[in-house]
């Protein structure tokens, strides 16, 4: 299956002092494609995610969205261009309601002068949030509940649902199934499949290899700051994927050459 490329990085590098965190990495993400990003701790996953999301600017290389070159001066610019990122640590504001979280940073003001003063159309946002979440397979009793009243799985679902709702081109999900039970993780994977059906490019970062193998079209393996393997998910088994991550398989190939 081939996908039309929506997001691409070419030959990006990033160093922190003398440490080369990312070395000449190139990666394509297609519309409707789920690309898994795997690698050991320190392999450069986080750095690549930060470059993709606009949190960090690479030292070299290009970033192309819909074939056009972009420089993300801040995550907000990437966000406005259609690239949504769900960070592992960011999550939701627990004291705000589901609807307030979904609309955070993109509130709908009331009409007229009160709207210009910052007064918000809270009922409309509550109704819209509920409808949007339901559309991608998340149905809650009420979008007016505070996030602190939700279970861990529900919170994660809302967080991802929020990204999927707003993303126009690409969503980057950093460890979205971490700390979740099997059933909840399954529902998160289901949301990812819905995002794919909507034609979004999805970057899925995870340590949980069965999840990666289950949901991804293509898997990219990072090791020591380099992309060491980029192949369709069907190419890998759990064992060979682990082999590429740890370097065991590459070492064998090098020995054979």
């Amino acid at each position: 299956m081939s996908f039309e490329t929506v997001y691409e990085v070419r030959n990006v590098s990033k160093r922190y002092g003398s440490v080369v965190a990312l070395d000449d990495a190139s990666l394509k993400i297609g519309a409707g494609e789920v690309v898994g990003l795997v690698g050991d701790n320190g392999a450069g996953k986080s750095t690549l995610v930060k470059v993709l999301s606009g949190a960090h600017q690479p030292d070299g290389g290009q970033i192309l969205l819909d074939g056009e070159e972009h420089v993300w001066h801040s995550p907000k610019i990437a966000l406005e261009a259609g690239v949504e990122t769900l960070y592992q640590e960011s999550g939701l504001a627990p004291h705000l309601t589901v609807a307030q979280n979904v609309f955070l940073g993109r509130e709908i003001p009331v009409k007229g002068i009160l709207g210009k003063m910052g007064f918000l159309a809270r009922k409309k946002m509550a109704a819209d949030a509920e409808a949007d979440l339901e559309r991608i397979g998340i149905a809650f009793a009420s979008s007016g509940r505070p996030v602190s009243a939700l279970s861990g799985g529900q919170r994660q679902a809302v967080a991802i649902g929020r990204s999927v709702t707003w993303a126009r081109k690409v969503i980057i999900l950093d460890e979205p199934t971490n700390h979740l039970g099997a059933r909840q993780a399954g529902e998160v994977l289901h949301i990812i499949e819905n995002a794919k059906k909507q034609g979004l490019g999805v970057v899925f970062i995870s340590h949980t290899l069965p999840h990666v193998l289950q949901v991804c079209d293509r898997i990219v393996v990072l090791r020591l700051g380099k992309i060491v393997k980029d192949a369709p998910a069907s190419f890998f088994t759990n064992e060979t994927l682990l082999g590429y991550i740890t370097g065991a398989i590459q070492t064998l190939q090098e020995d054979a050459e």
Partner: protein
Amino acid sequence: MTDSKQDQLKPAGIGAGIAKLFSNQSILLVAVILVLGIFFSIQSGGDFAKVMVFNNILTDWGSIILLAVGQTLVVISGGIDLSVGATVSLSSVVSAFVMMNVFKWDGTITGDAATVPLLVGTLIAVLTGAAVGVVNAILINVAKIVPFIATLATLSAAGGLAIIISGGQPLQGPSNFSLISAFGDPRLNPFSFMIIAVIVVVVIAGLFIHKAKLGLYTYAIGSNTFAARGAGINVERHLTKVYVLSGVFAGLGGMYSYIRLGAGSPTSGSGMELYAIAATVIGGASLMGGVGRILGTVLGTLVLYTVQSGLLMINVSPDWKQIVVAILIAGAVAVQGFKFTSKRSK
């Protein structure tokens, strides 16, 4: 994930009823005020129940409620503003100083003739408060000093500056005491022009905090700064607004104090920050951020003043009021802790 977990959220057993009652802080606070009112009325042989007492409570309450509203915004953001009391002193002194030395308006201007001078004075007091807020915001956002220490520094600086400018003496400028007196018979009506002005300001502030973006972003930052940043909120810029607003409320508090005294006193706001913080916490705000209501803060302030006036009326030594305030704060925080545990024990 799709099923409602609401049923599991309710704490079971004996705690359920208490938890439910406590979960509405406003109802609890109204009950506390009523119980205190009845207690003090009986103890004072009916004196406490008089309108004039309520009049005094409201008049005393003016500056503190303004500070407490600003403080609530700061506390919701996850910060604290210790500088507000000193800002009251500084803004009342600066206002008096400018009125007297720049505009040559002195204590001979009284009554209606003082309207324009007092309006100009209010503007100066507000600008002074805003300036202290800007300094707080720079210390917190740029110098990356935690709010507690940053505002402790400005508390000290503003307090010192107030004494330097005033020479340690109250500066007597234009005055109009009818602004602070009840309309008509004070035995029948507890409201003065200033109290009504304060109530209007508090209501407007409440609308912006609970219905508008200003409040929403403040809650978001106090609840989870990471999430707020991730949602594209400019956290530093918003916190600057929060501290400047707290300064503006302190400036208004300073002007309230000036109008009450007819003078800018360098000690008029001393210690007020503690009452403002106490009122905020008693009103249900969490110093961890993300929680707080203006209605709660208003009621929290009334609890404080009911206790203070009540103790005075039943001839308890004023020294005891500090201890009672301490007990109230500890009690409020304990209730908060109880609510937190009952929510977590699902």
